[in-house]
């Protein structure tokens, strides 16, 4: 039944409402085997609902869930080959680490020796062996997180769901665990479905990111796609720091995809990120902070505007500066720059420049 083209998971027209609040609008989505997919969005966007529908904890109002070619829409959680790492880990407090991990294996009807072998293998893999007989209350936050992961991996699920599992960790540990998680995913070749509201986390770990907003998918693509070619204003704003400017299309060059753009009377050139912009349309454009550079003299790039530095924020390896534009009064651009460059500029006017392909034109 499952040909090679068959995706691991296929969501078809999934909708879900809670009372009058619509959580998901007719969502379609596929996940391939071995893929690290991240669902990214603000709270209440429907990402957790999607996860809970996949896990079987919520029933969709419409649509089907196909797992490895089988319709599992009506199946309760215990009958799906999907396991989940919960946000609060949900470790069973009265069971040791080993007992927590063997819980799912016992219910699969595995023999005691097979369970032991699987536990030994997993504990070695996740470096949990010394903690086998500890209770969850005797573990640190990072250790609990690993136990939760081990417990979910133990029954060898087709798909692993992770519900913001790093939320409870502190910033330093969090970063370390992100890399660990990514490496575990690579080595196990399992499909991970990761839910987070943290865009940095999503960019670090994912093969593919699905950005959700108000129950709909805003964009589905690689981290690079999302960052440099956002499909919407929402994505541009939600993923990374950006300058959003609003203007009007003055002309479109179909061959190169370049768009002439008028911003407060300043002629600019950019690339259309999606759709087919028409002349005269009101559009927005996204300018990434790191794609802008500062010059003392007018540079020869496609786009350049003049202004004065009004604010400097030291960020360690680099600085962010706000520049009030002289050509467009009332407008400011934020630019990343290194400390050396910044020290060259005093209170004198500076030029901000960027290339045409660094400017993504978005539907308004």
């Amino acid at each position, binding site marked *: *039944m499952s040909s090679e083209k*068959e995706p691991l998971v*296929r969501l078809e027209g999934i909708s879900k409402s809670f009372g009058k609040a619509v959580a998901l609008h007719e969502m379609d989505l596929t996940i391939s085997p071995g893929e690290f997919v991240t669902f990214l969005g603000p709270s209440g966007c429907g990402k957790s609902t999607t996860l809970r529908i996949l896990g079987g904890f919520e029933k969709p109002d419409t649509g089907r869930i*196909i797992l490895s*070619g*089988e*319709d*599992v*829409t*009506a*199946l*309760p959680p215990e*009958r799906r080959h999907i396991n989940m790492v919960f946000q609060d880990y949900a470790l069973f407090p009265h069971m040791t680490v080993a007992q927590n991990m*063997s819980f799912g294996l*016992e*219910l*699969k*009807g*595995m*023999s*005691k*020796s*097979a*369970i032991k072998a699987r536990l030994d293998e997993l504990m070695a893999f996740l470096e949990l062996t010394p903690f086998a007989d500890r209770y969850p209350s005797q573990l640190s936050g990072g250790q609990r997180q690993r136990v939760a992961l081990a417990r979910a991996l133990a029954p060898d699920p087709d798909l692993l769901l992770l519900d913001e599992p790093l939320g409870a960790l502190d910033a330093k540990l969090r970063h370390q665990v992100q890399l660990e998680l990514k490496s575990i995913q690579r080595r196990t070749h399992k499909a991970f479905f990761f839910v987070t509201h943290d865009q940095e986390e999503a960019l670090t770990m994912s093969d593919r990111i699905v950005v959700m907003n108000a129950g709909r998918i805003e964009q589905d693509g690689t981290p690079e796609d999302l960052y440099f070619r956002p499909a919407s204003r929402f994505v541009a704003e939600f993923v990374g720091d950006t300058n959003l400017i609003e203007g009007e299309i003055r002309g479109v060059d179909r061959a190169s995809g370049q768009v002439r753009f008028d911003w407060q009377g300043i002629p600019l050139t950019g690339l259309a990120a999606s759709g087919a912009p028409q002349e005269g349309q009101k559009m927005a454009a996204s300018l990434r902070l790191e794609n802008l550079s500062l010059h003392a003299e007018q540079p020869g790039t496609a786009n350049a505007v003049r202004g004065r530095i009004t604010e400097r924020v030291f960020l360690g390896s680099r600085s962010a500066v706000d520049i009030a534009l002289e050509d467009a009064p009332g407008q400011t651009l934020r630019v990343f720059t290194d400390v050396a460059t910044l020290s060259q500029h005093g209170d004198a006017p500076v030029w901000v420049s960027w290339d045409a392909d660094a400017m993504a034109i978005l539907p308004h």
Partner: protein
Amino acid sequence: MTNTASVGAKRGAPAVTRPPASEDATRWGRLVAWKPYQALTGLIFASPRRQFLLLGIIPLIWLITQHLGPMLQMFQVSLLDAYPVAPGKETHFTLDNYGTFFTESVFQKPFFRTIIYSASLTFVTLLITYPVAYYLARYVKRENQLALLLLVLIPFWTGEIVRTYAIMILLGNNGAVNIALQWLGLIDRPIPFMFTGFSVSVGLIYLTALYMLLPLYSALEKLPRNFTEAAADLGAGPWTRFRRITLPLSLEGIGSGCTLVFLISTGYYGTPVLLGGPNSTVFAQTIAGFFHVAGDKWPTGAAFAVIMFVAALVLSGIFTRLIAFLRKGDS
């Protein structure tokens, strides 16, 4: 996408898809793989709705037949002219049992005495336990609160009769109080505390203080300390702070404590029998009297019990409303 895939899978009861358990599986593994278990759980857990109905049906039957049943039966018997039904005879609906109460003042006296006793001793219990709860919740360090609470709880683990007896020893003519007063030279001959309304009240307060203390304590304990500190900051004196801040915010605890104590104190039977005398008969004794003698008047007793229960509920209902009104007015 091929539309042949998974056509067979339909919504509704999922098929049992568990693989057979290994021979050496654990207890739980063998259980869930056991065919009869699968058949049974398949039936019960087929839908959340069915699961809920099956979970709920037995407790519901229990509630109706065991919790509600006795009260309904009592009400029904209170409307009969004779019970138990003599063989070959028919019973008739009547209101006479209720009429008896309203026409014969012999019965009204203990009724009103019970209401007055219960209400006033509820108030006295409140006065006694409020400072105790206040001290415990506001002045004792949090880590010591539990130990002290546990200490106060100890006497309440023991029963009505044992504690009533303790009061008898305290208040008797040769009891501790009288002996102490004589020894101090305050009295010449013992004061007859026993077999009066006084001894009954002391006994009932002794029995019910806990039901007042616990709600008061939990209400006062929840009250943030910085409320009163803020009020003190604003120049409110101790009395003003108590009247304007602490008291209104503990009204909920006062309400539930008083309701509990009132309801419970109307129901004591053993204590008034042991501590009371002919002039302090309470309604519980009147009601019980109808059930004692053979060939008794159960319907009248049932009617009196209904009257007592309804009166107690109505009074505590009014009181709860009053507290709710006060709380709204103050916040």
